């Protein structure tokens, strides 16, 4: 294989700017849009997670119909670390249910409270200790009983979460005498089949702006004009340096949030100095923001996306080999 591509495009670099348990910001440098876009698209549509996919309704006397509740159950994000070990139900031909299915139960019992009660994700009972709704605190459930402590301990071991202050995901509200009893099966899936399997709330990238100030032209502005120019941009792009009396580009970290609104360019024209600054998008620097739903850790999502992308290519290469062999055989005949 001849090294046909420029080495630069082959070896992108990455700088992580922010990493919390639900969000990551990183810069992907020295690569092309096609690579950045493939990564973004795979993150959104092809990183597997778990979500409730089958619901058996045993009893439902609530105000919402069965399918409505089933849909809402599907949309609850579930901790999906286990997804990598599981199989897609449509790929798996074996008999071992445990590799495709994770069972849940939602049984509220007959509501005895005089006031309306929220049924939340905390009321789900999981049969697999590694799979639970995000921010799961079974102690907060309507029944608030047994098994709860065990899960709290596991949740704590998983890393920082936002504690019981974050309420569970509301599924339905019950009035006195109403009841819900359902059995749910969570399965592995990908976002392109249904948005409930998307691991992210948002996955975006933006191009890094390259800002150059025409110093010669800038020097012709009065102090007030310079100040007004600095003020004109809704994102803090520029700063007026008192000491040198010059307009300088503010911290590059700030400049990254530039929305390409062109306000400062308009201002430059208004001042009668078009071409005062030049802002263009760099074509090889991408600033990613990936915000997890909580199903997977954000860094895990990115790594899984890369693995998925790589596997895609490998599968296609395998197919290509088969194709070639078949053709060779045909020629031989």
């Amino acid at each position, binding site marked *: *294989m*001849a090294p*046909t*591509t*420029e080495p630069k*495009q*082959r*070896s*992108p*670099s*990455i*700088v*992580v*700017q922010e*990493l919390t348990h639900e969000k990551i910001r*990183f810069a*992907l440098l020295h*690569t*092309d849009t*096609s*690579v950045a*876009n*493939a*990564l973004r*698209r*795979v993150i959104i*549509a*092809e990183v597997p997670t778990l979500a409730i996919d089958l619901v058996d309704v045993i009893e439902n006397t609530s105000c919402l119909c069965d399918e409505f509740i089933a849909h809402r159950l599907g949309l609850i994000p579930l901790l999906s670390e286990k997804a990598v070990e599981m199989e897609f139900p449509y790929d798996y031909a074996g008999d071992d249910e445990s590799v495709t299915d994770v069972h849940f139960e939602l049984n509220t019992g007959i509501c005895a409270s005089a006031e309306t009660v929220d049924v939340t994700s905390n009321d789900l009972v999981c049969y697999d200790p590694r799979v639970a709704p995000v921010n799961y605190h079974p102690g907060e459930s309507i029944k608030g009983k047994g098994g709860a402590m065990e899960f709290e301990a596991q949740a704590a071991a998983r890393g920082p979460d936002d504690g019981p202050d974050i309420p569970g995901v509301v599924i339905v509200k019950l009035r006195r005498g109403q009841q819900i009893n359902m059995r749910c099966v969570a399965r592995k899936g990908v976002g392109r089949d249904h948005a409930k399997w998307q691991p992210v709330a948002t996955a975006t990238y933006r191009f890094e702006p390259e800002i150059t100030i025409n110093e010669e032209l800038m020097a012709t502005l009065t102090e007030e004009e310079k100040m007004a120019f600095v003020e004109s941009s809704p994102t803090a792009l520029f700063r007026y340096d008192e000491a040198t009396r010059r307009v300088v580009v503010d911290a590059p970290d700030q400049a990254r949030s530039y929305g390409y609104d062109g306000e400062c360019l308009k201002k430059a024209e208004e001042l009668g100095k078009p071409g005062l600054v030049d802002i263009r998008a760099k074509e090889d620097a991408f600033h990613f923001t990936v915000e997890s739903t909580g199903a997977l850790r954000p*860094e895990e999502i*990115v*790594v899984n996306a*890369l*693995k998925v*992308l*790589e596997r*895609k*290519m*490998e599968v*296609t*290469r395998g197919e*290509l080999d088969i*194709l*070639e062999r078949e053709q060779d055989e045909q020629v031989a005949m």
Partner: protein
Amino acid sequence: MSVYEKTFTLKDEDHTMGNAIRYMLNKNPQVALAGYSVPHPMERSVNVRVQTTGEVTATAAMRDALLDIISVCDHVHDTFDLAIEEHGEKNATAMETDVAGKGGGSKKK
């Protein structure tokens, strides 16, 4: 039909792969033409057209493109792991200095 020009149909794929492969093919100077299209937005398939200059077969060019993307993925994976590690270390030291400077370390105007 010559071995130097081919249209590959990738089933169950979309722009994600189509565009990445097209880009890598076009990077190859032995490829005369490379393009892709999605015949219908509701059908999950892409057509990738490859025509080479005659030095390599279309299939070989395709394989090279796939290998290139695999190596990019590998590289990004390693770089990402490293960047995460680096970020963790930087944060740890920043926290230490923050404590030492009584939280005044990260002051911003």
